[in-house]
């Protein structure tokens, strides 16, 4: 199996994630899309590391997971508090500040 295809897959996932960020309203979903993008990166990293035959990529992937986890912690905290005070997790409702 040619690892380059994984790159294509990775880009595809990244694009899907990005699109999700742009079109979905629910903050949670948006956040999940971002996670998806991060995972796309992981995939790409792993694929490259396979191609290069060194482990850096894979190590980075682990780091990324940790970071993603941390992001989840922070992100959920914020989003939940927003939800509790607004009773809605829609990112579009949160538009007090504009112009």
């Amino acid at each position, binding site marked *: 199996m040619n690892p380059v295809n994984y790159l294509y897959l990775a880009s595809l996932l990244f694009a899907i994630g990005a699109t999700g960020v742009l079109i979905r309203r629910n903050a949670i979903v948006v956040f999940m899309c971002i996670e998806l993008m991060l995972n796309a*990166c992981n995939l*790409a*990293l792993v694929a*490259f590391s396979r*191609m290069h035959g060194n482990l850096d990529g894979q190590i980075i992937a682990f*780091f990324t997971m940790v970071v993603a986890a941390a992001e989840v912690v922070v*992100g959920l905290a914020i989003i939940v508090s927003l939800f509790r*005070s607004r009773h809605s997790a829609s990112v579009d409702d*949160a538009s007090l500040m504009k112009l």
Partner: protein
Amino acid sequence: MSASAVHSLWTMAADPIDKIDAPKIEYGQLSPMLIVIGAAVIGVLIEAFVPRKTRYHVQLFVSVVALVAAFAAVVGLAARGFGTTKAHIAAMGAIAVDGPALFLQGTILLAGLVAIFTFAERRLDPEAHGNRVDSFAAQAGSVPGSEGERAATKAGFTTTEVFPLALFAIGGMLVFPAANDLLTLFIALEVFSLPLYLLCALARRKRLMSQEAAVKYFLLGAFASAFTLFGIALLYGYAGSVSYATIANVVEGNVKTIDPALADTMGNDALLLIGVAMVVMGLLFKVGAVPFHMWTPDVYQGAPTPVTGFMAAATKVAAFGALLRLLYVVLPGLRWDWRPVMWGVAIVTMLVGAIVAITQTDIKRLLAYSSIAHAGFILAGVIATTPDGVSSVLFYLAAYSFVTIGAFAVVTLVRDAGGEATHLSKWAGLGRRSPLVAAVFAVFLLAFAGIPLTSGFTGKFAVFKAAADGGAGALVVIGVLSSAIAAFFYIRVIVLMFFSEPKADGPTVAVPSPLTMTAIGVGVAVTLVLGVAPQYFLDLAGQAGVFVR
């Protein structure tokens, strides 16, 4: 491509694993970061074990001590010549200890220290139930306006977590400009971003706006860092390594690719260029350059003002440091590709920032847009790609960060029933009510506008001169024009403060504790000193102008 081209990891696995030699870490040289991070961890423990009443003082004490110590460490390193002669790569190539790194770390630490003072200010808000309160929510978790919130306020809770959070952020920022490989860069980015997201959400007043700001900042920040990460992946794919030096070599073609398998990655400039673009984008987001600036106004407005000041100052410094290192260490060979792009970014940033600010009505948003415009000016210096360019940017950052913190600190003083009175109309006639505060703020505004005898002018002159030397004359002219536009709205505020009649229901100016006073005082002092006798600091920046690689 053929399967044989693919490495077979298990064959490697078959080999006897020769022992991994322990990584060699120069703790002394990393001490500034270690101190701060350590203090942050201690701070967390304090939250866990120290009784609520005393937490505030302990936290404040710890963080101040940590920051001072770290700054002392930085000075020590610089004194021992790590900034110049002994500059080198530490921690197995992860961290660079060189002039720019130390200079920026010093700046960040001082800015952080001053910012911490404003964090700790507890005299501005009227006392709630006999407890002094700072500008952070009593209990971030409680729903605004809910019973819980009232209870928390009554109990005199305060979110002392802000101190460790700030320390974590500062720690990340210290690493950011010193990061010498893409992984460290990414981690540092996240380490200082995540606490900031939280800090944004912690305002005591206007909590809805604060939370909204946090959400926006968080989502967009995560979005941007995803791009960065993908860029990193691509660069890794291109060079087969994430260390700056290696990538630079590959870019400059010093590495002869032995392995044909890698030809189509190493040879493939598309990977390189796209990767660079995405990483740079991540950094531009942090510095708030157009078109990645749109979070700035909202977040600056929503976040608690001390946090805003801290972000505006320190984040910019760190991010520009990283940007400089990336462009000057990794991509000098690629100059002819990224310079034109940066030209474009710089121009739109300067113009958009200046023009949009004209019609702002909220002082914090106004400052946000002005920070965008300034990002544009600094980019002009970045584009110079000369040692002069580096040192001018370093100087500008130092000058700018203190003006910014000072300005936001003044904003915290002007209050009415609803907390800070940030709407411009409220500032009318401030110069009549309290000339001193108005005068101080005027000094900051003039510095922003780049009027001679203020640090703003020296910095602006430095970057523009560097840009002109670097052959970006046109950029200078545009910069000059946009600073003319920018001058207009700074002056508008001054007019408002001094020449228009005060409103009857105008805000009052709270008398701050020595903490905020120091913050403002330091701001003014630095502004004037760097304006009148900048020679020493210019020298400093000048010596610090060389990156190690």
